[in-house]
């Protein structure tokens, strides 16, 4: 298994290189730059700005220098304990931001990523708890009113987008009832509305996948064997049926985690959460070259790791699969 993981990590190096190169050059060819505004700066100021950010160097030189700054130069993962500082831990320097001259991209990521991760983690927890419960209930009470209710709930959850559900919840629970804040990320109570909104969509998908997966497994011979041996229904569901029934959910979780991380932009904007998703999208509008690259690289790395984790878990769940 270690060889499998090692090989997959090595394979991801060219992938990352392609992503970095593509992003680096694509954003330079997008019309408008970091200093483009309806009110133009004078030519002197434009020259000074370009010199300050080394934009007057030839493009290949900028690319080469940037790649060198990105290359990991040390290995002190223990430095991560005191804060998410990729420069101290691995020598990866994402450089200062164009938009926020008093902050580096490393600092922005260290500041914002934990917020997005927290939002993602709670949303995923909401999604799993409700999705699995509804899905299992629907499967074991197939074609009863319980099944119909769970399934239609899931359908509604899939159909109502977060940018509709979020403002609706705010309108009802924050503005009219005053139970929550309409926006912000200060106290634990502020986590409820955003996580419920983001989680509900994924809960709906998970419920449908779980129902389908468990139903399929329940017809297998080994379930009949377990029943014949007199195992309790609870034991059959939790011990035997779930292990196989969850496979589709696990393969869904890889892209779902990536989606929750990169797709939190909408939720972060509705609820004014200081997460990385909002910075990611705004950095593209701001032509903040270094921040765009830094977040793209980070997300790409996270997605590579998530997919790898999903593959490992799938082999563990399904003995028919092998590491190869």
């Amino acid at each position, binding site marked *: 298994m270690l060889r499998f993981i090692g090989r997959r990590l090595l394979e991801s190096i060219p992938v990352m290189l392609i992503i970095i190169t593509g992003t680096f050059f694509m954003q330079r060819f997008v019309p408008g730059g970091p200093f483009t505004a309806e009110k133009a700066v004078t030519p002197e*100021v434009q020259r000074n700005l370009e010199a300050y950010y080394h934009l007057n160097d030839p493009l290949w030189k900028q690319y080469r220098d940037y790649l060198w700054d990105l290359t990991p130069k040390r290995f002190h993962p223990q430095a991560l304990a005191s804060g998410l500082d990729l420069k101290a831990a691995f020598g990866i320097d994402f450089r200062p931001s164009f938009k926020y001259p008093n902050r580096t991209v490393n600092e922005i990521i260290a500041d914002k990523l934990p917020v997005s991760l927290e939002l993602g983690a709670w949303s995923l927890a909401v999604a799993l708890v409700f999705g699995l419960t509804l899905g299992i209930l629907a499967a074991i009470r197939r074609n009863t009113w319980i099944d119909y209710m769970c399934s239609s709930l899931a359908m509604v959850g899939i159909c109502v987008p977060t940018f509709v559900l979020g403002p609706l919840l705010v309108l009802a629970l924050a503005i009219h009832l005053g139970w929550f804040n309409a*926006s912000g990320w200060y106290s634990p109570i502020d986590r409820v509305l955003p996580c419920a909104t983001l989680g509900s969509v994924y809960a709906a998908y998970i419920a449908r996948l779980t129902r389908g997966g468990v139903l399929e497994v329940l017809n297998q011979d080994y379930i009949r064997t377990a029943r014949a041996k007199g195992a309790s229904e609870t034991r059959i569901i939790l011990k035997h049926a779930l292990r196989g029934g969850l496979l589709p959910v696990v393969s869904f979780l890889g892209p779902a985690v990536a989606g929750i991380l990169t797709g939190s932009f909408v939720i972060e904007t509705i609820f004014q959460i200081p997460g990385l998703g909002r*910075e990611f999208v705004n950095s593209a509008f701001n032509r903040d070259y270094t921040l765009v690259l830094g977040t793209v690289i980070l997300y790409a790395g996270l997605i590579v790791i998530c997919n790898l984790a999903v593959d490992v878990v799938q082999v563990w769940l399904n003995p028919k699969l092998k590491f190869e």
Partner: protein
Amino acid sequence: MPPGRDKLNLRRSGAHLGLMVLLLLAGACSRPESDRFAPVPNVLRISQRNEPSDLDPATAALPDEFFIIRALSEGLVVPVRGADPQPAAAASWDISADGLRYTFHLRPDGVWSNGEAVTAQDFVDSFRRVLSPATAARKAELFFSVKNARAFLSGNLKDFNAVGFHATDARTLIVTLDRPSLGFLRYAASGPWIPVNPRVVQREGRTWTSPGSYVGNGPYLLQEWLPGQRIIVRKNPLYRQAAAIHLQEIRFIRLDDGESEDRSYRAGEIDLTMGVPEDKLRVYAKDRPNELHRAALLETRYLAFNTQREPLNDSRVRQALSLALDRQRLVHDVLHGGQIPARWILPGATSNEHPALPSGYDREQEQARALLRAAGFPNGQNFPRLELSEPVSWQSTLVLEAIQAMWKQTLGIEMAIAVREARVHVAALRSGRYDIGFITLIPDVDDPVAVLRDFTTASPNNYPHWSDRNYDALVEQAGQSGDPGAQRHFLREAQARLLDAQPLAPLYFNTQNWLMRPYVHGWQQDALWNRYYPGLWLDKR
């Protein structure tokens, strides 16, 4: 769909909502007391729509950044709505007879928040910092009327002593201009002229603007800065007029857009918004008339015609297009925000004399059709399908759709609307790859010469790519003129020439509409979004 099914769906979504409510109820039981709900005496909570890039007056470029900087520091003079700049760090000033030398006398009681006295040398050092090429200050242009400032900024002049800033003693600052400038004090009141404490900047480096390091000479101190969340400033006990500061704290709450701002205001989390969503203006005017406020802005919205492209290179076509616009209807039926229809380019507050409004839209429509006929497009026949380019924004789409309909109705011509990302839009306009573009013109200072200079041949803001030597000369003469009467004359001539050639069609002068709680008193903001915080008070009884 059978009716029974419909009912079932309703029941299902009802169940869904019910479950969500239950879920959230469970969470609500553990709700701690939030400080944002209890009315806090003497704390003002303001919506901050744009995250400041930095809080350094030398490099800041947006009004949104100066919202906070002006709470933390103050310049020699401060801008005031509808009046000349008022004394601030400078108690008074003398102007030499030729209008080239301004001698500012600083207040004896001006101190930095770390206790040091504010000296004239601090101002000189701050200005040197703004003009140093290494600082790359975006708004350095606002210093160009000062002797040799431009040469020093471009790096051609190395000796700062040759630039027109001199401190003769601790409290006397002499500014020498290289030409008489009637609006000079307005420039001196602009944001980049706000001083920094040079010793603190030297010592702290790039992070001098963080809480704990920031030293200013203004009414408030930087207490907290959570990027993307909020900025809190608290009363500065050392401020020269500390008695006039009634608020304990001002909180700038970061809110991305008009919708979330609106929700936060209604939930009682902020006291003051930046704007009101267009579609809610009429509702608020009816429901909360004493909370809805409106003020004129120095902001002209216009359509630029690409004069390098056919058929827009024909001034008759441009005039026909402009005449066919019913600006009155645009403002009253589309925008609802009290905007002022514009037939000229200088906003009301800058130009003292306006050409009279031509009478009757009907007659203008006739004129427009006749002009188009003369240009070879009777009833819009053979007129090519042009593109109206606009940046992504709710307001401009409404406006452009109305314009599209007016041109079709009056002139019989078809236009396409192209919505572009903001910077792509500007880049297309600047490089001339567009037909007709929607532009918002906001000058840095209230100076009509600067507004008209945008349309001179060499200006990077000359989006119509129009060139007229006589116009350039008139604007230049207006800028050189030291006599208000003569300047007015040149401005009037220049504007008349511009509107005659019509490389652009002014649409309207914009306004700000905002919501403010009735207990907020003494709110001061000029037409360029410059705020003045002393004198603010809250009556929360």
